[in-house]
Structure formats: C-alpha cells, structure tokens
C-alpha cells in the first residue's frame, strides 16, 4: 500500500511538470499570431489612443516575462481570464460547455465498449468464419472513416432521408429524457465509431491470445462449457489492457469531439473552441487547451494508479 501511495505521489509530481509545460506552451502560442489582442477588444474604428489604453489595461505593455508569471499565477489560482469578445469569465464559459462535452464523450465511450467487447469476443470465438470476416470489415471501416464525414452521412441518411432523429443540438436530460436520448444517438455514433473499431480489434486479439493458452485447454479438457470459459476466464484475463486503453481514450474523445460538435451543433467545448477560433478569442482558446490538457493528464494518472492496483504485473518502481 505504501508503495502504491509513493507511486501515486510520484506520478502526480510528474504531472505537475507536464501541466506547467502545457500552460507555458499555451501562453506562448498566442505570441505566434500577429494579432494584437487590444485591437480585437477595441471597436473597429477605435483611435490608436484607445487601442493603446486597452493594451495598457490588459497588461500587454508589460515585458513578456511579467505577463507570463502573471498568467501562470492566475491559472494556478484557477482564473482563466475573460473573453475578449463578451467579457464573460472563461471559467464560466468552459464550465457551461464542459458537461455537454463530457456527456458526449462518456456516451461515445460506453457505445464503443458495449459494441466492441461482445463483437470482439464473438469474432475471436468464430475466427475464420463469415462472422469474423464481417466484423473485421466493420472494424476496418470504423477505423478508416473520419468522424466528421460519418457525422454528415448519418445526418443525411437518418434525419433527412428517414425522417427520424434530430440533425443536431442538445436537450438536457432533465428537460426531456426522450428528446435527450434522441439528440445523443447520432453524435455518439459519429464520435464513438472509431474507438469502437479500435477496442474491437484489441478485444479480438486479446481474446484470441487467451484462447490459445494452456489454462483454456485444461478447462475445455475438464468439460467446462465454452461460454463459461469465455466469460469467466478468457474475458476477465483479456480485459485489463482494453479497459486501460478505453480509459485513456476518454481524453482523446474529449479532444476529438471538436469536429463532431461542429457538425451536430453540440454546445460543448468543441463548439466553444471553434467559435473562439473564428473570433480570435485567445483567452477562451487558451482556457480550453489547458482544461483539456489537464483533463488528459488526470485521466492518465487515474488509469495508471488503477492499473497498478489491479494488475500485479505492473511494477510500482
């Protein structure tokens, strides 16, 4: 237990350095563009005196080192600044949009797991059959289809041609449960298909590997039914890496939802990011990058710790 605590503390310590790197990178990114934030805040026809005044108010006339440490201190205190466009606190904007993104990412993850694991097991158990071939083709399609294209095709096929399900938008589950589910289906499929295909491949390969092991042969020799062998022994032993990857994918799903959110007009941080990009609203973009970066780091730590706890083969050193 003491080893695990030390392991966790060590990983957290490493993560602090990574997060500091993310914040520094995000701060420096703004200086790569020629845009003057003061000019963005000022009206189109503002006098140069007014732009100068705004520049001073925003602290942009300070040396870059001062600006950097001020930014670092603000972020360390959880203050991501204010939107150039609206003056709204970036924390509020992100907190307002994050639930929708997390909701979609979790739904996509659940979709991916629910489809991929049974299919992977089925495919592995029926290796070389038509079922195996069909599921492999589906997997290949899922891996090679860009999610934005899939999203557009789904919209054209389902709501436009078949007249069912909405083309986009989000309804909160507390507002109308049925409408919430209806709005979730297509974006979830669009976002989750790639991960479903990925996890399917992992599951299939792991199950095949386990099925070839001695203990499976011994179990069969003892006369245990095939479904008991599969579910109770093979599946359990082959799931650890799948669950680890699935956990790590959650971070990718959050980051990868940007395009899907745009296609489905989903009010998450992806849509917020694109809108900020279009209006050069740097504080929002920086805030989202930091939040997503920190989220990814945290998920990694949690997965590592869980893995270390659950899998005795993981070396805590």
């Amino acid at each position: 237990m003491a080893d695990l605590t030390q392991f966790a503390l060590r990983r957290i310590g490493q993560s602090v350095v990574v997060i500091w790197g993310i914040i520094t990178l995000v701060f420096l990114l703004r200086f790569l563009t020629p845009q003057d934030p003061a000019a963005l805040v000022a009206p189109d026809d503002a006098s140069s005196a007014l732009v100068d005044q705004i520049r001073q108010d925003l602290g942009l006339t300070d040396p870059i080192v001062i600006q950097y440490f001020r930014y670092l201190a603000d972020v360390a205190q959880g203050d991501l600044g204010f939107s150039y466009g609206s003056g709204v606190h970036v924390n509020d904007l992100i907190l307002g949009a994050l639930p929708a993104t997390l909701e979609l990412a979790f739904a996509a993850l659940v979709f991916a797991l629910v489809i991929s694991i049974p299919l992977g097991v089925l495919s592995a158990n029926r290796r070389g059959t038509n079922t195996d071939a069909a599921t492999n083709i589906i997997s290949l399609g899922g891996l090679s289809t860009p999610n934005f294209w899939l999203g557009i095709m789904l919209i054209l096929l389902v709501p436009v041609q078949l007249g069912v399900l909405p083309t986009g938008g989000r309804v909160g589950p507390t507002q109308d449960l049925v409408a919430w589910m209806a709005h979730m289906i297509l974006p979830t499929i669009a976002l989750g298909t790639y991960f479903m295909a990925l996890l399917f491949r992992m599951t299939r390969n792991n199950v095949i590997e386990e099925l070839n092991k001695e203990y499976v042969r011994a179990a069969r020799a003892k006369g245990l039914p095939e479904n008991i062998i599969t579910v109770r022994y093979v599946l359990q032993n082959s799931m650890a890496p799948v669950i680890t990857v699935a956990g790590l994918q959650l971070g990718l799903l959050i980051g990868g939802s940007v395009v899907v959110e745009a296609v489905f007009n989903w009010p998450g941080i992806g849509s917020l990011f694109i809108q900020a990009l279009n209006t050069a609203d740097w504080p929002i973009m920086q805030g989202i990058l930091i939040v997503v970066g920190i989220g990814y780091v945290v998920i990694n730590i949690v997965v590592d710790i869980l893995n270390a706890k659950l899998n005795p083969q993981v070396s805590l050193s």
Partner: protein
Amino acid sequence: MKGLSAAPIGATLLAGCLGNGEPDVEGESGELFPDRELNLAVAGATDSTIDQHQTGGIQNGAASTLTYERLIDRDVDGNMQPMLATDWGRQEDGRFRCELREGVSWHNGDEFTASDVAYSVDRIQDPDVHLTSDLQGNLSGITGTEIIDDYTIDILSDGFNSYVETALSHFLGLVIVNEDWIEDREPDETAVNAMGTGPMQLVDVQEGGVSATFEVFDDYWGELPEWADHVDEVSINWIGESSSRVSGLRAEEYMIAESVPPADVPTIEEDENLSINTSPTSRVLKIVMDQRQEPWNVWEMREAMNLAVDQDAYINNVMDRFAVKSTQPTLPQMFGYDPDIDPIGYDPDRAEELIEEAGFSGIELELTVPTGRFLLGEEFGLALVDQIDSLSNVSCEADIVDYGNFTDAWGTSRPMDMDFFIVGYGHPSWDGRETIQTTLLDTDGQSRFGENPRYDELQDLFDQSIRAPREEAEELTKEMNRLCVEERCWVFLHGQQALIGHNNVLDYKGRRDELVTPLDSGLNQ
C-alpha cells in the same frame, strides 16, 4: 428542437391540399410548426456576446433584432418606418427630435422612456459609460442627447448631420437598451442576457455562440408576425457548418437556413416543401490595390486591372445567378447609388496597352484570394486570376489563404506584400456613405486610398454630404461614387447575393441588409 413525434410538415401540407381543395398548412397535430417552435439556422456567430452594444457582427443581428429595437425601423426594401419613435425630424442644425412611442413596455415590465434613449447613446458613445462599444463608429457625428420630456428627446450632433437618420435606423446603429437593467448588471451578464422591447423575449442562451431561445412577448406594443400565434418559441442556432444547416432545413427542423451553399440549391429547389430566397446583400466585393506603392499608385495599372476582368463572364459562368455586377462602391439598393455610372467594361487589348504605357510590361502579380468567407470566394477568385493572367504582358498567380489568416495579416500588420487582394465589405446602414467612409476614407482601411491625390477631394465631399440635407447628400454621395470610379479605386466585381433556404410554411421575405429574420415573414396559407 424537433421532437420525435413531430409530423413532417411537407406531408401534412400535401394531405391538407388533397382534402377539400383548400390549402391546409396545419400538421396532424394541428400545429404549423413542429412542437410550436420556429427554429432558424444562421451562419456561425461572429462575436461571443448578444449584447448588441458590444458587437458589430451581422450574424448576431438575427438574435438581437428579435428582442432589441431602434427608434426607426427599415422595411425589407429599406424604407424608414416608425419603431420606438413615432415621429422624427430636424429641429435645427445639430438637433434631431424624436417623438417616442408611449405605452411601450420592456420585457421585465419597466416602462420605456426617453432616458433609455439617452442612456443608449451614452453607452455607445461615452467612454466613461462603456469603453469599447463596437457601434461607436456607427453613430458618427452624434454627440449626445437632450431629454425634452419622457416621450420627447433631441439627438444632438456636431452641426447639421444628415447621417443621423441612418444611425438611428439600422440594426447596428442606435440600439435602445434598458438603462436600469443594464446598470444593475456587470458587462459579462449583459453579454449573455438581453432585455428589450421587441416582439421576442430572450429565455435562454447556450453560451459560446451555439443558440439563443426566445418566446413571444405578449405585451408587445406592435403587431406580432402572423406566425406568432402558432409558435411558443423561436430559436436562433448559430451553425458554422453549412451542410448541417442545410440538413436541418431538409429535415424540417429549421424553418430558415442562412447561406445555403450554391451546390445545395438544386436539392432544395427540388423539394416541394422548401424554397430558396435570393436577394441582394449590402456586401460589395472588389479587388483592392494598395495605392501606397507601385504599381497600384499608377492610374493606368488600376484601369488595366479593371479592363482585364470580365465581370459578365465570371458572374454568369462561375457565380451562376448569385451575384450582381458592381459598377461603383455603392450597391443599387443603397442611398447614393448612381444609376448613370456605366460599367468600366472588358477590354483586355486596351489593358495590355495601358500596362505597356505604364512601364510594367512583364509584371508578375499575386492576387490574394481569401477563402471561407465569401460566396464561391475561391472559385471566382481563381477565375479572376485566370482572366488577369491571360493578358500577354502580365503573369498572375493566386495566393489562396484562409479568411482568418487573411484578416490577421490585413487587420494588424498590414504587410506591404499583400497589396493586391479580394475582399468584401457589407454594412446594414443602407447608406453608401458608410461604405465609402469605412473602406476608402479610413486611411488604414480596406482600400488604402489615402495615398491617392484625390483623397482630400473625396473627404471633402463626404464632409459636405454629412452637413447637407438628405436630397443634396444623395447627390454628393453619387459624386463620391463617380470620383471613386474615375480613380479606379478598386477593381469592381460584384454585389453578393444572399441564399436563404426556407420552409414553404413561411412566406419568407429576404432583406437587402443581410439581416436574416422571420419578423418580416408571413404564412403561406
């Protein structure tokens, strides 16, 4: 949003027509609009605020005009109509009196009075009240107000100013806000809330430019649109992805979809339940030639580029029907347009001669073509490059850049190497002087006209027009247009058309100021 149970409007329309011969636009549920919602899909928001004093973005107008009002309205053809002012007129030079409508209620029940108007002017104009309103420049010349009584106010200007009517009447001009409501709130609260006098009351905003939902304001002072009886909510959905807008329209989730890509027009026209509305916008497209440097400080070169461009060819072959030939800075529907100005015409032989005479034979040009902003921007940009490149003594290449990067370079650093580029400018003022002021008289502005020897003359005409009565101002604006054409201030291209897809339940009326709104629409029944 459309619910699962919503009956397709098209099917019910058809069913209604088959019954007794009388068109019946009501669905099986007895509703014209699914779930009694009228949803609009407009192009992505240009600002992350719905505080109309903080944004100059046209796309935000779809939402703000539902809830905020002005003293004077414009109908679909641009004619001034009473709104919060019932009567108006100039008392003397520098004093423009507005008689305000009585019995107007704000959405929170407050009474609208002259102090709200005074506050609105101050909030836009006075740095002590509101430092950075994007609308400051749109109230050009207005210096303040004087309240005569609760329902009479004088708008003060620096002497006679014929621009006042313009500033009071367009949706990016003097938008009236509720003084008490604003003063009780921080700017970040007013960015995501609204309190107006308009026919729709804001009930919800999904922040980050996603959507805004309104409900009908039952105590509205004016006549509500015909469809208001059939609708509980109106939502504005800002959707940057054009295919999503069109799909939503085809699935009958959206009643109106802005900026339909031309490629989708046939699909929509084939659908018996949908139509395309095409109307001219205020956006004029041109090629800017930076007159601060060679070769564009030479008149012959500017003339040659105009002669090298075959407007008819690219408008017919590339733009299909979605452009109107431009002959001057002002578009036909605007104040100050001069119908007597002829197109410069297409004469490549003469263009080659002029280039030779100017000593630039063999010149290599690079035309910057921004993409992602203007209708068929890349397509017509490349056509223009081909036309210019086909001159025997010029080679021309395209520099295709994303519009965001284009504006970065253009708006901040203004590099000298981007001296020849396509850009469009639009403004809902219905006044040609606005375009001339912003694009030609602002020396940092779009046309870099400041180095032209006749800049002072143009400025003088503009100043005179502001001080002149409206009829005289119109003549002076025409004169400004003639001067700009004489100087070949731009390569004149075209006025952009708006392509709005709409469901046939609505009798959609396209506006010429780029505002997408259901407020002018009736019902097809």
